């Protein structure tokens, strides 16, 4: 596995469908880049307005959720030193849009911002259909660029043993231990979505498998697959 130093990037861009995907998958990497003066942009596909988590105790509802989550996103991005843009699609609908039309919008942002690295989800290996669809659109966007291509990194989600069997070990790793608190703060900014999770982990203690995963993996290292030149399911 190769170490990636986010401080050496020219511009780091993350393209994912929901407010909070950026913090879970790449929050540490984003903070390391922005602290080194690297511009960081989160291109977020949807408002996350069909989430079922409403806070614990719940404070959001189906109709207020869109504004609640945009405010949370703004705060998380402030914590991570990133700016964000929203593509404004509806949650859960990304896979039903024309992938080439979504790709065209992602490509427009890439051509405008000229990132050196783009992080998205690994299409076909990201559990949530919106993740897979946003990953595919981003892959299509990068593949269709004229001239220089940014490095394209994919986040795989799910059972780690299973993923290792299917895809091999991740290609790139970022040590984020220095940014533990910042990643935690960003996740907490997504309060409607994460409050319940933090409460559950507090109750479960060290023995709980999810709590261990959180402490020993999620807050320690962020791992990515290089997607340039890889053919992905449903490509083209």
């Amino acid at each position, binding site marked *: 596995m190769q170490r990636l130093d986010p401080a050496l990037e020219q511009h780091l861009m993350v393209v994912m469908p929901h407010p909070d995907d950026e913090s879970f998958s790449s929050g540490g990497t984003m903070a390391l880049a922005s602290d080194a003066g690297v511009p960081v942009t989160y291109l977020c596909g949807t408002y996350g307005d069909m989430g079922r988590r*409403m806070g614990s105790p719940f404070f959001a509802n189906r109709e207020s959720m869109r504004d609640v989550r945009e405010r949370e996103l703004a705060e998380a991005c402030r914590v991570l030193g990133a700016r964000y843009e929203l593509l404004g699609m509806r949650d859960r609908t990304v896979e039903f849009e024309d992938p080439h039309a979504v790709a065209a919008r992602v490509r427009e942002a890439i051509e405008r911002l000229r990132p050196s690295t783009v992080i998205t989800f690994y299409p076909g290996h990201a559990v949530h259909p919106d993740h897979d669809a946003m990953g595919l659109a981003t892959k299509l966007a990068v593949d269709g660029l004229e001239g220089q291509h940014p490095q394209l990194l994919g986040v795989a989600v799910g059972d780690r043993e299973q993923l290792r069997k299917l895809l091999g070990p991740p290609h790139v790793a970022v040590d984020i231990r220095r940014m533990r608190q910042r990643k935690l703060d960003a996740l907490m900014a997504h309060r409607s979505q994460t409050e319940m999770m933090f409460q559950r982990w507090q109750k479960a203690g060290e023995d709980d498998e999810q709590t261990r995963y959180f402490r020993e993996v999620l807050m320690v290292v962020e791992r990515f697959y290089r997607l340039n030149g890889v053919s992905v399911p449903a490509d083209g």
Partner: protein
Amino acid sequence: MRPIEPKEVQAELDARLRRDVYLHLETTTGSYTALGPEKTQPVIAYVRNALVRYERGRITGEGPYRVGLKLSGGWVYAQGLTDFEVTERAELLLAGHDHEGNLRVALQLSVRPFRE
């Protein structure tokens, strides 16, 4: 939102009787059940901004509650409703939450379309 008061909800249902109203109907297990201890596939469905007109609409049960809307040629039904709110835009929101505050079912009615 606050716990359902059946009388208040019944009055809200009556206020929208026999006119075109926009419906949001939804049920969800969440997207990540396959990763959780239950290891089941997610089941999610929603309809947003379907235009309906009902000639009878009732809320029943002791809580969680059920709502049935009798259309001229069909039905709208939801079970497991626990909380409600009438928004500033006069939308009637009914939802069922689990013990952790997650939404499990929603039935919403509005004279104006819900935000797309």
